[in-house]
């Protein structure tokens, strides 16, 4: 791992809540300017990891370094250089957009001139330019998240930690959001985010796939997809559920994933299995409209990793 130059290093992090091991021996290093994604189902440990990195929750075991600062030993010094946006909206709903920004700017001792310039620029980028006097509680979900980002960026952090920042956000706001994140990456800010959206996961430089508190895979989205065993076929038809059920125990099938009106079927050999599957479906009365080979998405990788027959 490129520890010497890394912006964020997590080394052997573990954390339990009573009987639940929320995070188990998680290690990774994030290079400056990377957008590092934490992906996994609910309860995989994403929020716990981000909270530990933000210095608001202490790990039971393990070390965290942020720009070379030991977060466990000096959490307050590390906090000067990071911004953390919790999953739940953390700003004051009974205060206006401008008042929230002013409050967070003052906590980080941003000089007045810089504050005005930055907040104007960030609000414009977030499409919130006209909403300075609106109460934060009266913003839409997407606007709230963008305001959270504006407040997090008012003091030029070196590391930005975002916990599911775009959950419940409309597509337009999500686009604004990502435009700002790409802009930050250009200026060398390191970004760690958790997400439940696979299309967002694919925009990250690297991804950690989490399950039950452990990292199951960690690589660039492209390499994760390459590493997936077998080939992927998309089977479409009028009754996708019926198709899926009919294929569960077919020979050569490694995994199944219902995706809207199609079923993604992972097989050991695409050329050999395609006619076999077609014949099987026809005999069970679920004749498919089409069976085509496709490129896997992160979701498929995930299912391949966690589903039956996954590498342990």
């Amino acid at each position, binding site marked *: 791992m490129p520890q010497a130059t890394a912006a964020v290093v997590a080394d052997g992090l573990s954390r339990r809540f009573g009987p639940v091991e929320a995070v188990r021996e998680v290690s990774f290093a994030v290079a400056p300017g990377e957008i590092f994604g934490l992906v996994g189902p609910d309860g995989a440990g994403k929020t716990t990891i981000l*909270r530990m990195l*933000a*210095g*608001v*929750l*202490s790990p039971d075991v393990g070390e965290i370094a942020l720009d070379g600062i030991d977060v466990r030993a000096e*959490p*307050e010094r590390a*906090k*000067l250089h*990071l*911004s*953390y*946006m*919790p999953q*739940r*909206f*953390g*700003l*004051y*709903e*009974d*205060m206006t957009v401008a*008042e929230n920004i*002013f*409050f*967070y700017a*003052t*906590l*980080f*001792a941003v000089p007045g001139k810089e504050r005005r310039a930055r907040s104007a620029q960030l609000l414009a980028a977030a499409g919130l330019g006209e909403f300075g006097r609106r109460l934060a509680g009266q913003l839409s979900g997407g606007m709230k998240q963008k305001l959270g980002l504006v407040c997090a960026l008012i003091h030029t952090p070196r590391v930005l930690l975002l916990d599911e920042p775009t959950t419940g956000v409309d597509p337009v706001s999500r686009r604004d959001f990502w435009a700002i994140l790409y802009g930050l990456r250009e200026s060398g800010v390191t970004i760690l985010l958790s997400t439940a959206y696979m299309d967002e996961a694919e925009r990250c430089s690297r991804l950690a796939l989490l399950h039950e508190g452990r990292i199951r895979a960690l690589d660039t989205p492209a390499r994760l997809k390459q590493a997936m065993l077998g080939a992927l076929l998309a089977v479409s038809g009028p009754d996708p559920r019926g198709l899926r059920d009919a294929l569960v125990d077919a020979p050569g099938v490694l995994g199944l994933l219902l995706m809207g009106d199609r079923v993604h079927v992972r097989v050991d050999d695409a050329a050999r299995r395609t006619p076999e599957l077609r014949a099987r479906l026809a005999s069970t009365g679920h004749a498919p409209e089409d069976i085509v080979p496709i490129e896997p998405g992160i979701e498929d990788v995930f299912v391949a990793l966690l589903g039956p027959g996954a590498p342990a």
Partner: protein
Amino acid sequence: MSLRRILALAFKEMLQVWRDPRSLAIALLMPLMQMVMLGYGVSLDIRHVPLCVFDQENSQASRAVVERFVASGWFAITAALDSNRAVSRAMDRASCIGAVVIPADFSRQLASTGTGPLQIVFDATDTNTTNIAMGYAQGVVALVTADLDARWTAARGIRPSGVGVVDLEPEVWFNEGLESRYFIIPGVVAVILALVGAQLTSLTVAREWERGTMEQLVSTPVTPFEVMAGKLLPYFLIGVIDAAFCLLAAIYWFGVPFRGSAGTLLLTTALFIVVVLAIGYLISVRVRSQLGASQVALLVTMLPTTLLSGYTFPIDQMPAPIRFLSLLVYPRYFVTILRAVFLKGSGLVELIGPVLGLVLYAVVVLWLAARAFRKRLD
């Protein structure tokens, strides 16, 4: 420590209080309402004690005794009864709390032996009222005796010599009219501030945990001391306004004489407000839910304050362990201070003991609260 951060926190808190007019109204009106209720409701003076009379003799002498009871103003005769059974029935129904029973041979015994037997029966369910009423009754009987004495000596043409008679000239200081209200109202102010003050701050930190704003706040470089100072500042202003309401009502509405200096009053009141706000804040830091914090604040302040602050129940009359315990009940210091400033006009020098008690309390509680605030979710 950064003054700018403290002011930013205080400004934020102020905005939030201002934007929540209902809570603000409660914070400002509650003390006034309590002032009226406690100010009028709590009185130790007992007047017009309901009394029954069972006069078995119904002579001139026995009627004179009854008239003395009525004339005193302490008693009101609610019924004239004609049997012992009627007396016990009246006591059972609580239509009187005492009965004067004059025997049929009252005048005869008075004439033959020089002593007229008179019985008073009391319902001692409420011991405090009974004690006071018994004291009043003894005073009335003393007057009756004096009447008889005067008549006897006058009838024999003897002029009172005065030899061997001790003449007591009672003189009461500081509360010349012996108005229990003057004694109670300053204590009521202290009790109200203790209750309201802790409620004010008990919600501030808990609210942020509940609304999820604390998670973001603790991820910033703000220090626990800054959070505490920033949060106490706005409530200090509200506390001062509440105190001003109560003190002005005590002086101008209830007419309690104010003999001390405004400076001493302001300084000690400010000190007391710091203590009560700090207590509420400490609770808010420890109990991370608003409902829980508010209930703990009520529990922690209500009972000790009403029972052990000495505002109605005198501390010197309590058993030693309780008296010792009351040293921990911070409102007792302010009750003492307010009474002395109001009625005696005492200054800081005379009040050094209770003032130091409050200072010590403020320092310890603020230190505990600053330490108790963790910038952690766990």
